[in-house]
């Protein structure tokens, strides 16, 4: 992360930002990104707003409205007149993000943004990052060690093992390859099993109790299974696909399942 923000130099290799090679004097490129490396440091005795104003001054970004917008986004408007020393860890983290986005960056680089936060703080940061990505179109790179959080935040995951990238994969792809079975609930398991067998040629199933069927043959996509069941008058009360956990998937990679990317 420090290499990407020009804080340290790589021993070898290259970094390309916005289509151009990053050099020690790429100041304009760095102005197009916001970052929190390790943890955000502030002038503790200054107010939250004063910290943001100072940052914008450093960056040569003069738009007071942008500070209000950033404070609104991280829900610190109204308490931005308080000195930062009175802020909780979660509030400081949100202020760090406000500072990183105040200058309207195209790319946000966040080093373990949820580490050390309580569950409420984690949820707030997660929601905020989702808004920044989905509604504001900001590209985000996050480093993390927390598997459970990845699922909520990532479109793409780069898995690092001892400093080496062993896989770069979209979360969607992980979900597809990680599927275990389709499970649905119905009031007529006998008829459902007949439809699966005769209309979709699916026989690798298991009936659980009176109302649940699991399909282990995943060659037919879930929407197609659902459609055929309904067209043949099988009342489907609910249907979903069960995936094995991301933890199992990634630990499998570390145990020899992944090749260097």
């Amino acid at each position: 992360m420090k290499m990407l923000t020009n804080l340290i130099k790589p021993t070898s290799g290259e970094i390309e930002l916005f289509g151009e090679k990053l050099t020690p004097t790429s100041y304009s490129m760095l102005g197009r990104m916001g970052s929190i490396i390790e943890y955000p440091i502030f002038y503790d005795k200054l107010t939250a707003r004063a910290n943001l104003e100072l940052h914008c001054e450093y960056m040569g970004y003069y738009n007071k409205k942008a500070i209000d917008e950033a404070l609104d986004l991280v829900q610190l408007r109204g308490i931005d007149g308080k000195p930062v020393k009175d802020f909780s860890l979660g509030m400081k983290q949100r202020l760090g993000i406000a500072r990183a986005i105040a200058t309207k960056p195209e790319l946000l680089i966040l080093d373990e943004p949820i580490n050390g936060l309580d569950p409420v703080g984690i949820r707030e940061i997660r929601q905020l990052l989702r808004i920044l990505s989905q509604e504001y179109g900001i590209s985000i790179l996050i480093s993390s060690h927390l598997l459970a959080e990845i699922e909520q935040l990532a479109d793409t995951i780069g898995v690092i093992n001892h400093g080496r990238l062993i896989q770069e994969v979209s979360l969607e792809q992980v979900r597809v390859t990680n599927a275990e079975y389709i499970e649905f609930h119905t009031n007529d398991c006998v008829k459902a099993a007949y439809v699966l067998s005769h209309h979709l040629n699916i026989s690798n199933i298991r009936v659980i109790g009176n109302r649940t069927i699991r399909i282990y043959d995943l060659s037919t996509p879930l929407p197609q299974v659902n459609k055929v069941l309904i067209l043949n008058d099988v009342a489907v009360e609910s249907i979903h696909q069960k995936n094995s956990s991301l933890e199992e998937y990634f630990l499998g990679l570390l145990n020899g399942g992944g090749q260097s990317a």
Partner: protein
Amino acid sequence: MTYVLQTHRLSKTFKGKESVSEVSMRVKKGKSTVSLDLTERARPRL
């Protein structure tokens, strides 16, 4: 521009120990990418 950030065989050695080894990865425009390091412990926060 499809990717806002790309690294090409990026390596970093600290005190003789390679902490980043030939990493080539990309961040797509408008997307969230997570670099997941499963071999290091998370840093404690104060």
